[in-house]
């Protein structure tokens, strides 16, 4: 199963990378969202896979049966999901503001911070 998941994760990462290589901020944003999912799946697979039994201790037991899924990666992913959602929200609004303020979603045209034709620094003394 891990093999198949590895391939799936590869597809996730490849898609994310392709989208992020775009000039357009919106596509970069989509890429970031997919990247987050890829990372989560990677963490999930890193803890090895088990089918269907959630890590919840039954009422009549004190310990979790060993067939249950590995809870640690799940907890890590929960943390990571929340964080990546936060970043996604921030970036989304940033993109929106970028479009508003700079009038474009094309990163090639966003040259306010690093203008294109800057004059040489003074050469004298």
């Amino acid at each position, binding site marked *: 199963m891990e093999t198949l998941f590895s391939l799936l994760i590869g597809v996730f990462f490849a898609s994310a990378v392709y989208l992020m290589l775009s000039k357009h901020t919106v596509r970069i944003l989509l890429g970031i969202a997919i990247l987050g999912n890829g*990372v989560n799946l*990677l963490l999930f697979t*890193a803890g090895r896979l088990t089918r269907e039994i959630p890590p919840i201790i039954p009422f009549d037991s004190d310990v979790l049966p060993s067939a249950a899924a590995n809870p640690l990666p799940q907890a890590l992913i929960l943390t990571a999901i929340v964080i990546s959602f936060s*970043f996604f929200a*921030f970036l989304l609004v940033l993109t929106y503001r970028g479009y508003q*303020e700079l009038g474009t979603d094309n990163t090639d045209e966003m040259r*306010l911070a690093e203008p294109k034709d800057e004059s040489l620094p003074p050469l004298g*003394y």
Partner: protein
Amino acid sequence: MAAPTTAPIDLSAAMVMAPTALADWLVIAPMGLMITLGAVLMMVRHKLHLHGWIAIPGLVALVILDGLLLWRVAVDGPFTMTAGRWLPPFGISFTADLLGALLAFTSGIVALAAGIYGLRDINATGRRYGFFPFLMLLMAGVTGAFLTGDIFNLYVWFEVLLISSFGLLILGSERQQVDGALKYAVLNLIGTTLFLIAVGYVYAIFGTLNMADIARKVPEQRDVAPLLTLSTLFILAFAMKAAAFPVNFWLPASYHTPRVVVSALFGGLLTKVGVYAMIRVMVMLFPLEREELSLLLAIAAALTMVLGALGALAQSDLRRMAGFAVIAGIGNVVAGVAIGGQTGISGAILYALHSIVAMTALYLLAGEAARIGGSWSLQTLGGLYRQAPGLAVSAFVIFFATAGLPPFSGLWPKIIILKAALDIGAWWLSAALLVSALILTLTLGRVFLLAFWRPQLASAVGEPVSPATWHRSGPLVGLVAVLVFFGMFPDLPVRLSQGAAATLLDPTAYIQSVFPTGGAE
């Protein structure tokens, strides 16, 4: 929600039973204090007059706590507190060793300086939209990162400081900030994501996240696990955070856009967290892999410092120049890491400490120069030597400290790293170090000539500027005093960074502090 259903169980199999000394709280306290104050500031966000009264004493307390922490580590060696009382590696351990404590303490100092400077530099809007909460949580992230002993937790603190830096980056109300912030955010997000991915692989290989535990397990797994690929991934992720060539783009693209006090904080702190993580992971966890990849690191280091220095020379804008100066400094640190060994690592650590102070001071200086001279650009600046002699003295110190000339603090790490490079016969790396230092000398000498010595341009004569209040001059003078004092009496920081390097190269003490009884095997 049920009470325990079985008979009392043996807690000692799961928990640390030894009583917790109050002094152990020192490793948590800086981070805890900053988060608490950040939360409080958030609750009183609209009561602007309270912000300074909460934040500045808070930062003073942070410096004191960090100082006590450093003192304790220097005297007693590393110590650990594991959150939740769980036995390591099951809970999240916070472990303070010399490296973390030194960086935390130095960061505390510059945060205090920036906080005080920010009282005047940040206007009401900036404050209402969270300058001080962002600052507090940035510091929570920074100190948390320096002191945590858990690699996933390190990632979390990276994110805390990253999102705080996003917030700070957009506070200055200028349109170019959106552009800078976009590049900064996207590239840094890629960097931290790569770090998280690497952490995922670490978990997949070792089944643990505690760094002391990983350090113990690496030798067992060395023959089977893909540690070199993993190490390269770590290096790439941390190089991005540290702004090493060729993944340093985000820094020059964004650091000049926010308010200068924010740039100062960033210049001092953010890249150093990346450097810290690189040292922690590559030196302490994967020493043999670092050795194997040292050529890669050395090439990156040489390019970083030379291109950083050249980049600084190419700028007219003082802030952009400072950004490239930060990068050149990172090159020096990475060179130390690449060389390795007691000398190289201690040089890298010492340089990082120096750079935290010097780069913050450099940005604050640029801010004052621009405030008095009315411009950021060397094209129009002039006459500052006459107008602000005190500032000229600060500039003289900061410039030569940055270029690594005596008697200022930049000299010593440069000498140590150069010695380390020549010890192993890396003449080209030494040459890069020297070329970088020379170009920086030329660059900063030119700035002194043009902005300070050159008479004020007739077109630039404007209204007289109000003299600097202590909010502005105090932090600058304080940082300059640090640069001068440790330039003339470098023994203490040198000794401490040597101690830090020794602990990293032989992490027995670090591991011992996490697993006092040899651990739960």
